[in-house]
């Protein structure tokens, strides 16, 4: 018995096109197999249904790939031609071959739906254009000082948002509704070159390298390596003047012996009575121009009740139950600000290091490793608090040479 079609020669041919089989998977009985549609299942289902509608009906057909509307599509010669036009494009050397959408048994293009889709895309672009014009007009027309420019922000930003989203929607609708849903398959060629190419490349390089003489001429090679090692150095050296060498500046703050403590905000000197018991104030050395100049100088002045200070050394450096400690956290340098009056704990808001201010500012919690440095206090002739000396230890985070 002769067959009209030629017998498939390979298993791959027998299997057929992979994408076609994806749509219509083969079963051994030769009929299309879909979930729950085998004859026995239907039989059983029939029994079940007969006994009272337990299992829902399983739809026999798959959903169409592209929704072209719910009406029966109108097929005209023009739309047929349009569909034919989408057929396979010429393949290229990379083996890209196209599978036309008519291949999937797509429903034919309904010209009414097609036109409607085109109008949808056009509407999106028009909305975007209108929004863009709105942005340009709003720039000149909207009062720009209304609510500090908030109205202008909304107008410009809102218009821009609508414009961009509408353009995006237009392109997406175009792609979904008007473009052919071509599927293409392309070969991935092996990336690495054929063996002889690689060998030739190696040979070219090694022969070339040999002719440079670097392999055999020792003096040449060594002098070249020397200059290669040395040539980048000026690039580094020329960067030296980016900044001065670290000097004692890291150990100094803006405080000198005899400097009055002044309130950091009001710049007024502080005397006994300015601070209530349990009060805290940020102070700077008198005469500081901007905070940046004395970035390590911010100091906390705290007033305790009599006998509240526990540490002898702290007591020795205090004056009239006032103590002064560096405000710069010894962990990462944030200015510590949160004072709990009842417990006299000072909490740094950055990483929650906690210091006990009544007890030498020792660390009681958190990642800080050292207690805060204390500033020895005194009073001058007029009764204003002054610093007896600069801080006796470097203030702020640790560094290698700190000691």
């Amino acid at each position, binding site marked *: 018995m002769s067959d009209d079609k030629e017998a498939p020669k390979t298993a*791959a041919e027998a*299997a057929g*096109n*992979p994408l076609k*089989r*994806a749509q219509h998977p083969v079963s051994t009985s030769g009929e299309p197999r879909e979930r729950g549609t*085998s004859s026995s299942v239907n039989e*059983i289902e029939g029994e079940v249904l007969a006994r009272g509608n337990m299992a829902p009906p399983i739809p026999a057909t798959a959903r169409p790939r592209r929704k072209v509307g719910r009406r029966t599509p109108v097929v005209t010669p023009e739309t047929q031609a349009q569909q034919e036009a989408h057929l396979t494009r010429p393949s*290229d*050397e990379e083996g*890209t071959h196209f599978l036309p959408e008519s291949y999937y048994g797509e429903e034919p293009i309904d010209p009414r739906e097609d036109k409607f889709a085109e109008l949808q895309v056009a509407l999106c672009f028009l909305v975007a254009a209108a929004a863009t014009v709105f942005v340009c007009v709003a720039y000149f027309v909207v009062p*720009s000082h209304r609510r*500090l*420019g908030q109205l202008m*922000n909304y107008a410009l*930003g809102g218009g*821009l948002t*609508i*414009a*961009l*989203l*509408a353009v995006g*929607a237009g*392109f997406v609708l175009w*792609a979904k509704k008007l*473009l052919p*849903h071509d*599927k*293409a*398959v*392309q*070969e*991935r060629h092996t*990336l690495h070159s054929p063996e002889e190419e690689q060998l030739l490349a190696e040979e070219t390089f090694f022969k070339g390298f040999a002719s440079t003489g670097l392999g055999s001429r020792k003096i040449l090679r060594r002098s070249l390596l020397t200059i290669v090692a040395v040539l980048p150095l000026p690039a580094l050296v020329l960067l030296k003047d*980016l*900044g*001065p060498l*670290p000097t004692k500046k*890291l150990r100094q703050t803006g405080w000198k012996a005899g400097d009055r403590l002044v309130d*950091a905000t009001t710049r007024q000197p502080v005397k006994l009575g300015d601070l209530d018991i349990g009060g805290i104030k940020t102070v700077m050395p008198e005469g500081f121009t*901007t*905070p*940046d100049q004395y970035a390590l100088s*911010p100091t906390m002045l705290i007033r305790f009740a009599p006998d509240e200070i526990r540490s002898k050394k702290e007591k020795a450096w205090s004056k009239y139950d006032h103590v002064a400690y560096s*405000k710069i956290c010894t962990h*990462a*340098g*944030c*200015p510590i600000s949160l004072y709990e009056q009842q417990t006299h704990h000072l909490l740094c808001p*950055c*990483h*929650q290091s906690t210091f006990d201010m009544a007890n030498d500012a020792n660390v009681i919690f958190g*990642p800080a*490793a*050292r207690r805060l440095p204390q500033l020895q206090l005194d009073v001058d002739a007029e009764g204003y608090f002054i610093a007896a000396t600069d801080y006796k230890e470097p203030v702020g*985070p*640790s*560094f*290698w040479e*700190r000691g």
Partner: protein
Amino acid sequence: MSAQAEAATKKTLRYVDDRLGSASFLRRSMNKVFPDHWSFLLGEIAMYSLIILLLTGVYLTLFFHASSETVVYHGRYAPLRGVEMTDAYASTLHLSFDVRGGLLMRQIHHWAALLFVLSIITHACRIYFTGAFRKPRTLNWHIGVGLMVLAILEGFAGYSLPDDLLSGTGIRIAYSVILSIPVVGTYLGYLVFGGNFPGVDFIPRLFVVHVLLVPGIIIALFSAHMMMIWHQKHTDFPGPGKTEHNVVGTPFFPTFIIKTNGFLFLVFGIIAGLGAFAQINPVWLYGPYDPSQVSAGSQPDFYIFFLEGSLRLMPNLETNVLGHTISWNILIPGVILPGIMFTLMALYPSIEAWATKDKAFHNLLQRPRDVPVRTALGVMALTFYGILFIGGQNDILARTFDWSLQATSWTLRVLLLLAPPIAFYITKRLCLGLQHHDEELLHHGYETGIIRRLPSGEYIEVTSPLPAEKASVLAMQLGVEHHNGHGALPAPNGSGANVAPRGGAGDTGRAEHPISRPVGALARARASLENFFFERHEPPRTNPEDEEPKTLKVP
């Protein structure tokens, strides 16, 4: 196309081809096939955010003064009138209130930066969990990790430029981290800042880094990243008709380019919407930077949270040796830990390839469940990162939920060490469970939901087998032999649907090696890593028939 337009196009194409020989390149590019999956769009979001950053960034440079010179503000924002501040801060206020559209551009720029880093991280996770980093794409992974680090640094530099109180605190912390480096820390700090903190040189230098140097490197690396994807072709998930040697999808012209253009404008639109209606970085509320002030609840941008957390959770270790201090409490969380994390991340593909002796090319992606140990390691790393991330907000959590601050910190410290191994174990078992389910599906088919009662009174469930294509793909992913009941189906199109022995899905290219004892410490380490990667710890199945559920397999 009209005849005139067609003629003009032809003329142009020939003009260009005459000079460049571009015809075949153009044709191949237009035909280039791009596979389709939503997760492939994550990298595109990063790309489009980068474009917005560049465009809005240029706009901002036209108005911003990168100078630490002290000026007195006399602009429209009343609460800060008469206040001394740096010109950088003043120009940012001017841009926000006096330049029409200035605040919009600032906010779009900031939101685009947030989306940029977020999409890079998500994209990196997608690449990791699907195994797209395997040969030949390992180099691209390295470039990607570099891009991620640069994006994070660039974001930090960007929001620090306005020199406000919040970002200035961050710079102060960064300065302390530099100082903590042993031997050279103080020299580096003084060089970078031109002296003691804060100095007047840092903002102008940061501006050059943020506007010229790092974007240049990012653009160069990103171009290499894209060129490699173009040349090596995109990976794809296994499916019907897809093999290691082909790409199935949509051609570049016209379908893919129009779709991706639509996506570009949608991303632009969403970022513009955020910039228009969602306030971000209101620097006028923070005030100019002052080294003696700080706000409670100061938080950096989200991509720095993990560093904040590590700084907060680190115990207070400091050693003093011969007059020199090493602050482990800053050095480890600020320098050593991120260094180790990013290095491990960059080297992971090489480590995995070395451990699994995998030298083959991989173009098909894996599902996370197909590689339980890799997925579990990834979840473990994300858990570790996540706890550091949460640790960066321990004070906000304590305030919101009324917890003790110290208890929160201690709990997070303990969780940091305990949670990752637990996450590893749970994830691995979940993956193996999902694989078991897939095996059931493969051997028994779908449950139809129809129960049949046998005459003996027993109930069985009716199953129907998977379609053949799906079954062979699933078998390849699970790495099992698959026979379709009545004899093996031929592999579709010579795909090489692999029936590799369990323990490695895909074209492993592993040489058949007889069981041999590894010699040498390195080889032994490699063997034990290999075992670790492939082990499944399953209880031995004594009698397979006992465990098979009673099903009626519909032939």
